[in-house]
């Protein structure tokens, strides 16, 4: 990476520090994915819960 020919294997090797560097980036990716997925799941749960509440109330006949 110092001006000479670019090689992917050298890139992935990270000058011998591959384990540390890629674990760091991997964990960051995990964190990003987790932070995107968990609010989406939560949103679905909240919505289905409200829908259930609405259904329950319309069934028992006291809307609102």
């Amino acid at each position, binding site marked *: 990476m110092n001006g000479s020919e670019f090689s992917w294997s050298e*890139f992935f090797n990270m000058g011998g520090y591959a384990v540390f560097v890629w674990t760091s980036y991997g964990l960051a990716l995990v964190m990003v994915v987790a932070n995107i997925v968990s609010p989406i799941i939560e949103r679905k749960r909240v*919505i289905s819960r409200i829908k259930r509440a609405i259904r329950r109330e319309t069934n028992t006949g006291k809307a609102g």
Partner: protein
Amino acid sequence: MFKRIWGWIQRFSSPKHFYSISGKMIPWFAISAIFLGVYGLYMGLFVAPTDYQQGESYRIIFIHVPAAWMSMFIYVVMAVSAGIGLIWQIKLADMIAAASAPIGAWFTFIALVTGSLWGKPMWGAYWVWDARLTSELILLFLYFGYMALQSSIEDQRTADKASGLLAIVGVVNIPIIHYSVQWWNTLHQGATVSKLDKPSMHVDMLIPLLVMAIAAKLFYAAIVLVRARNQVLYRERNRQWVRELVEKL
């Protein structure tokens, strides 16, 4: 005049208004976060030169430093919005605070783990009681305390106020903790200078670092809004507008 501003604030911070506005803002934050993130990664991994002392391992800082900055930044945001919620009784501020905590804890965790992964090749050990790592560890405890208190109180309003007060107490303490940890660190291990934040940095290294930091902020903005919207839906679930909205989904 003051009354008008106050009225404007109240209208803007009404959960319903927030819900529709934030829905429009989230895509913009998300898209710019992705663009900057990809650009920052490219700059950091391909363009930035190899460090002459640390070799390639220094590339961890493009994750570690933004995460460490975010961990502090989010705590301050959390405390400020908790303070606004506590003093002016603005529910939206409480929701922002509550929505921030898990994200902040995640960033703190990443800062800790990447710090220790960077430390292994540098110090020869995964954990060294370095000032920054120790501060991050304490910060993680503060986040855990906030979340534990928040979830242990049944009544939502009380939980918001109690944990909000804790966040404010925490933010007053952070400088004191930070200072004492720094002092303690120089005392016991003056030799290990943290190279993660060395002041004179090559421009090609600095740019990806700043880009990644901004990307992280935008990412936080997007996620905190999504989470706050969940809170709005849940807490306002008995209101008519939420019901109408949910039925359309």
